[in-house]
Structure formats: C-alpha cells, structure tokens
C-alpha cells in the first residue's frame, strides 16, 4: 500500500467544517485521490457538536487566544444540580442552524443520495416575546402566523391587521413579478420596516411579526433581502408535510451534515486524518505541485490544497449562550396543525426593544432563542437545550442571560432550572473564495439562524478547480444510488 508521502494527491482538504465536508461529498464519486485532514481530533470544525466532556476540552483549548472564528468561551455547570446526565447524553451544537425546505442544500443532499444518512426533524412555531405590561403579570409568548389558516386562528391580531398580513403574504409570494416588483424596487435598500409601514400601512406590532420571520440579526434587514427571506420561508411551508417550513438534522444540525459528507467521502476512497495540521507549504513551481509538511511528520505532495481562512473572521460577530434546562418544554413542541409531525425545534424572538441592558437602556438588537427538544439527540428526553444568539456588543453576554431569564419566567417555561451554560463569541465568514498558486482558501460560513444557501457557492467553485477539465456541471452533487447501481447490474445479466 502506498504511504501518504508516496501518493501524489489530487487534493488535500484541510478542515472538516461544513464547506470542506460538502466538497468531499461532491468529490466522492470522482475517483480523485483525496487526503482530508483536520487539526482537531473531532469532525465538524466550526460546525461541530460536542458531548459535555468534549465541550469542556474545546473551551479549554480556546483560552489564551482564539481559534479562528471563536473566542471568549466559558462553560459553567450550575451549583448543586444533580440533573445533569452523563457526558455522552449531550451533543451541543456549534451550528444549530435549521434548513428551509426549499433550500438548495436539501436538493443537493437528495441528488447526491446523502440525505439517506440523515434524520430530519421538523422546525415548528415561531414565537414573539412580549415583556409584561405590568410587574404583576408574566411576559407572554405569541405565535407568529405565517399561513392563511394561522392568521385565521390567531387571536393576537386584529381583523384589519389580519387583512394586511394576508395582502402582504400574497404580495411576497410573487414579489419578483410585476406589478409587485414596481412597488418595492424603489425601497430595495431601505429597511424592510420602513417599506412595511409606508406601503402596507402596518403598525409597529405587525412590522415586528414580519421582521421576526426574517430572523434578521441586526433587526435592520433591507427590503430586498427581507422579501427574499420571507418568500423562502412562505414557499417552504408545507413542502415536506403540513405545518412546517424548515427542518433540522438530528444529532447536532450542520455537524451531522458534515459527518455524513465525510463518510461519503471515505466510502468514495478519500483518506481521513484527524489531529493533523499543516506546518509548512512549499510550492514546487515546475511541477505545479505543493509540498505540505504535516504535524504528523509526513510530507505529502498534492496538486491542490483547499483550506479555511484561519485568521479571525470579519464582518458580523455574534454572542451565543447555550443553556441546558431540566424541562422537556412540551408546550413548545406541539404539532401546529392536524397531521403535522411533532417539531423538535421552536424559535422565540425577542424583538428590538423588548429587553433592557444592565444600565437600563433598551437593547437595540433582537435576540433569538432556538429551543431544541431531546428528539434532536442533543440532550436527554426530559430536558431541553436552548441556543440564544444576538449580535456581539459589550452588553451581549448579560443580555443573553436576561433573555434566558425572561424566557424562563413565561407561563410555558416556568418550572425549568438551568443545568449548564456554555457561552462564546463567534465571527462570521464571507462567501469569498481565494484561489492562488494551487491553494484555495474558503472564508467560512455566513452566520445565520437559518441556513444561507450562499454558503454552497464556494463549495462548487472549489469543486470546479479540483475537477478542472473534467467538471461536468450536471454531475455536481448528482449521483446514482450506490445500491441501485448493483441492482441494475444484476438485472442486466
């Protein structure tokens, strides 16, 4: 058997984050010689999921500097709790991102047959948090209606407001056609809320509902982007079954997609090495090759290297709080409509202005809380994992704590106790790809609660570089079933 150093690799992929793993999936039938390494001793990179012990190691590894996109991580188990289960009973996700039914990622997972390895769960209701008007009342959670039937049954919206919502829903579904196009084009770069107020005459409350559907991190999404996001949500409704517009992969969200993709890569012949990083890169100009020195001591030659940008991220930065609570929060995970599957994820939005900073000012950004039931495999069945996210600001850590407390003071969540808190800051990537001298550098995934399809573009570009002349567009992520191939052969005998 050839050793690592003897083989002339077609591509070395460094990192098993989502994009690199999808690349491995894309190349899994190509017969290219692929060496896929990762400096960590786990799969998933920035999209990994951890048991409690692994989470603690990860946090420890981050102290004293950053790890590319992450910093300032802490993990605290609550005092005197006997509720925490064994380490392996948990699988906390760094990328608890859900995927809209109409997302291109799903079509690719289907056409590449990788979907068979993933178990998908439904993402259910979206709620809005309303602070109590009066100190003796509790704050409330209102379901956001996003279908005609939702609006019909909603008791939180006035008759007039219902009509406006209906008109808006119909508008959004065809927003790129005339005459709708003319109505918003002039507002394209203005904030969505302005457009809603001016053209649809929506009051602040109604604007909040619509804005929440966009899951905008700064609460200030443009009309153009906002309409696109809402349309994606609405047109995803009901695609895979009644009552839900998005799905979530069991076992840690995007982590599972990365793992399944790497598995496919391995089945296709790629060689995997965890705990291996690149110490030195040398270009061998005449042969158009690279010589890589790995931390394992091996030196390998390859035509191409694909890696992630490991300097810190740029652009958006978020703060996250992952909390494990000792309640199954059953009322959040009710099927929304008859015949709908039981959801495993529910989203609660704290719109701009619903929380106050420690100094007493109203907090100017939204906070999003994604609740995951034990169905996701991320915690035991009698517990839940809450992922809170907001834009990074000096106050964000305290704000996240306040949001968590506020959530736990609502009717639906009141008897829960916090068992564990994991906090960190994460910077986002961009979808730029840099290709220079046989090295392709990916710039990480954009930060969003719902999967952003633009994440997929650099993967395809990288694939084109690797395949070179042999790249056939129609074969990208489009594979026959491996089992089916075998059956076909038998039948033709």
């Amino acid at each position, binding site marked *: 058997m050839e050793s690592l150093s003897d083989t002339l690799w077609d591509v070395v992929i460094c990192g098993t984050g989502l994009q690199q793993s999808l690349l491995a999936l894309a190349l899994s039938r190509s017969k290219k010689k692929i060496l896929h390494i990762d400096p960590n001793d786990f799969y998933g990179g920035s999209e990994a999921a951890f048991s409690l012990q692994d989470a603690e190691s990860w946090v420890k590894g981050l102290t004293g500097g950053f790890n590319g996109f992450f910093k300032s991580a802490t993990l605290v188990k609550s005092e005197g709790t006997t509720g925490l289960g064994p380490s392996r009973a948990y699988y906390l996700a760094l990328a608890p991102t859900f995927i809209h039914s109409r997302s291109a990622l799903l079509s690719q997972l289907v056409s590449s047959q990788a979907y068979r390895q993933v178990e998908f769960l439904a993402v259910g209701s979206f709620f809005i948090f309303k602070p109590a008007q009066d100190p003796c009342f509790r704050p409330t959670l209102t379901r956001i209606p996003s279908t*005609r*039937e939702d*609006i*019909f*049954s909603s008791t939180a919206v006035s*008759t*007039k407001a*219902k*009509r*406006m919502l*209906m*008109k808006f829903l119909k508008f959004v579904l065809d927003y790129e056609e005339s005459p709708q196009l003319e109505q918003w084009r002039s507002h394209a770069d203005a904030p969505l809320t302005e457009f809603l107020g001016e053209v649809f005459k929506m009051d602040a409350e109604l604007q909040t509902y619509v804005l929440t559907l966009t899951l905008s991190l700064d609460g200030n999404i443009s009309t153009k982007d906002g309409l696109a996001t809402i349309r994606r949500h609405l047109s995803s409704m009901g695609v895979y079954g*009644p009552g839900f517009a998005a799905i979530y992969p069991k076992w840690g969200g995007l982590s599972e997609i990365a793992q399944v993709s790497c598995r496919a890569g391995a089945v296709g012949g790629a060689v995997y090495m965890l705990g291996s990083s690149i110490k030195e890169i040398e270009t061998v100009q005449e042969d158009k090759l690279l010589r890589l020195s790995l931390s394992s001591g091996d030196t390998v030659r390859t035509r191409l290297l694909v890696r992630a940008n490991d300097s810190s991220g740029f652009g958006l930065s978020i703060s996250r709080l992952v909390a494990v609570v000792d309640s199954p929060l059953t009322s959040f995970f009710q099927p929304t*409509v*008859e*015949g709908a599957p039981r959801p495993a994820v529910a989203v609660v939005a704290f719109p701009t202005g619903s929380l106050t900073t420690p100094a007493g000012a109203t907090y100017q950004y939204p906070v999003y809380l994604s609740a995951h039931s034990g169905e996701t495999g991320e915690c035991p069945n009698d517990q839940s994992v809450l992922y809170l996210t907001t834009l990074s600001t000096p106050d964000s850590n305290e704000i996240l704590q306040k949001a968590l407390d506020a959530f736990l003071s609502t009717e639906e969540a009141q008897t829960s106790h916090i068992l564990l808190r994991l906090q960190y800051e994460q910077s986002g990537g961009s979808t730029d790809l840099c290709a220079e001298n046989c090295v392709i550098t990916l710039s990480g995934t954009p930060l969003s609660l719902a999967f952003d399809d633009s994440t997929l573009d650099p993967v395809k570009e990288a694939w084109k570089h690797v395949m070179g002349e042999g790249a056939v567009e129609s074969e990208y992520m489009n594979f026959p079933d491996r089992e089916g191939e075998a059956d076909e052969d038998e039948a033709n005998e």
Partner: protein
Amino acid sequence: MANQGGSQHGIARTSRVRTEAQRQRDLERIASYRVLEDDLRARVKNPRTAYADRASAQHVFDLTTRLLRLNPEYYTVWNIRRRALLVLLPAGPKARRGDCCDRSSCSCLGETQPSHGCPKAGRSGTTADDAGDHTSEENDEEKKQDDEETEKQTRTMLQTELEFTIPLLIESPKCYWIWSYRLWILRQSISRLPVPVARGIWQAELALASKMLTKDRRNFHAWGYRRHVVAQLESDALGGGSMVEAEFQYTEDKIRADLSNFSAWHSRSKLIPRLLEERGADEKARREFFEAELDKIHNALNVGPEDQSLWYYHQYLMLNLTTLPPNNEHTITPTLPIEDRIAFLRNELAEIRDLLEDYDNVKLIYEALIDLTLDLCRLEGKRKPDEEEKENLREWLGKMKELDPMRMGRWRDFEEGLRREWGVEA
C-alpha cells in the same frame, strides 16, 4: 388492441413499441392469467360442487386471491370470493341462534334450502339439542368454548380479508370493487361478531377514513365514506350513540387545517340541525350558536374572500335568516322574529361592505352584496329597492361585469331580471 379507433379526441394513437423479448414476456403473462381464469371459471360453472365442501371452497378461494392480485377490477371474481368465504367462515353464535343471515350474506345456493335458511357451514352445528348425553352445565361450557373459538376464527378471517384489500387499495385507490368488498366484510362483522368486537373493527375503519382525509382533505368520496362509517357506528347494530359532537369537532379541525375545504363546511352544515337538537338548545342558545358561526365565517372571509367554499357556507347561514316559518324547523333559529332577521341582514351588509375597503376586486363579494340587498327587500315585505340601493346594485353589477367578462351573458340576463322584477333600471 392498439388501434381501436378514435374514442379519445385529439390524442394520436400510437402503437406501443415493444421489443420482441417484452412481447414474449407479455404473452407469457397473458397465458398464465388465462390459465388461472379458465380454471376458476371451470370450477364455478357448477356452484353446487364448487362450494360443496371446505376443500373445494378453499381451492376456489385461493384462485380468487391470485387472480385479484393480478386484476382487482374483475368484479365477478370478487363475488366468487364472497361465496367461497361464506362457506369457509364458521357459522357464528348469532347464526346458530337462528337469527343469522340476511339474503345477501347467505351462501345457500341451489334449489333446496333448509327451512331456517342457513346451511350448517364450517363446524357441523352441534347444538344443545343434539348433545343428549351431556349435562346442561357441560353443554353450556362446551357451547361457550365453541362460541369463543368461532368468534376467534371469524375475527381472524375477516381481519385477513381487510388486510388483503390494503395493498390492492394502495395500487388502485379508486377501484369501487375493492371498497365494496371492504364494506361487505365490515357488514359481516356486524352480523357475525359480538357488538364490542364489531365496534372495534368499525372504529378502526373510521381511523382509516380519517387517514385518507388527512392525505387528501377534499376528497368527497372519502367524506361520503366517513359519513357511512359514522352512521354505522351510531346504529343500534353496533350499540352506538350519537357521534354528532365529535363529528362537528372534526369539521372544526379540518377547517383549521385548511379553510378552503368545501366538504368540511358542507358536512358542518349537515350536522348542525341534529347537533342543536341533541343539545336541547333553546332559543337563546340557538341564537348564540348562530352568532358564533357568523363570527367564524366573517373571520374566515376576512382572510380568504376569494374562496368559494367560504361564501357557500355564508349563503347557508343567510338561508337561515331568509327561510321563514312554517317549514323551517331544520334551520338554526326557526323562531327568530322578523325584525331580528332584518337587523342581522343589515348588519351583514355593513360587514361585507367593509371587506371592500381592502379587497376591491373580488367578484364574490359583489355577488354576496347583491344577494343580501335583494334578500333584505324580500324580508321587508317584498318591497322594491330604494334609490340608494338601486344605485348600489347598479354599481356592484357593473363591477362584476368588469371582473368577470367571460360571463357577460349571465350578467346581462341578471340585469334584465333586476329591471323586470325589482324595477332597477340599468
């Protein structure tokens, strides 16, 4: 077979292209099918021998199983299966008591029939009379065991038959013969099994009907089937009581899932008279119920004024107001005084006109407004519309012509009617 002359317009008949290998395979399949069919037909030519004993009945039964899997549409074969099954099924305890079969389930064929009409099929009928030697307690014990055994056998066989139809239904969900056979088996359960067992089987059938309606909410065949199953569950034969409340709630659930469900709204309207009667609703309760329904439909129209099924239900509610005594006991509020009816109508006009503020190009709203105006005139002593109303009618009719020019002939006709009967000049 390929070119049978143009029985379909505009669709070119192309002869199917088959390879020689495919043609040979088809010929083989046809041949084996024919062999099966010929065998069956030969046996059944003489019904007295075909079903004379268990062995021959079983053979015929098995042939039908194979044939029906290949061709469930062959209804004669379903009938043959029924006859064979009747021989194979044990005579039920109900049967032995002499109050057994109706004509349809009796497998008695041929000229001579025993006087009580039921052959001693299955176990040769050991009755208490025959067992002269045993004490009456031992007889009772034996009979009880026999009954239990019979019931178990019957239940298993009927269950197997229901399961047999399932894969056939999945492939051919609209084949009437399969559904008909299923219903026949279900009827057998009533006549052969104790009430609680039969009830269980029919309840499972209701669950199946619900499942079908979840897969396709607007399948009116499925709604009809459901109504039939519910009627059986309510009948004395299954020891049932009224299921009106549960069924009413079911329509509520279906509407919540999808407003645009014509069949659900229709079912609702059919259930209401009985519902109110069973609740023993007095005038006040009936009025409150009516107002709640009005509220609900307003809420629905508010988000879906273009939906015809909603307007259909609205018309049903309006009929409740315009149908005057006598002969209106079936309505929601038969004793509502006329002034109140008029008040309701006026309120409706205002509510529906309000919709125009946000939905100004929905034809169905204008149609409803015209109907309401004329209804009002009728109720108020069959008077003619006043000037303002005439103006409105003209305007709304104009809108309908504009929004639905394809039906211009109808609108012109209607306009003519307005002039002749109501004095509304164009």
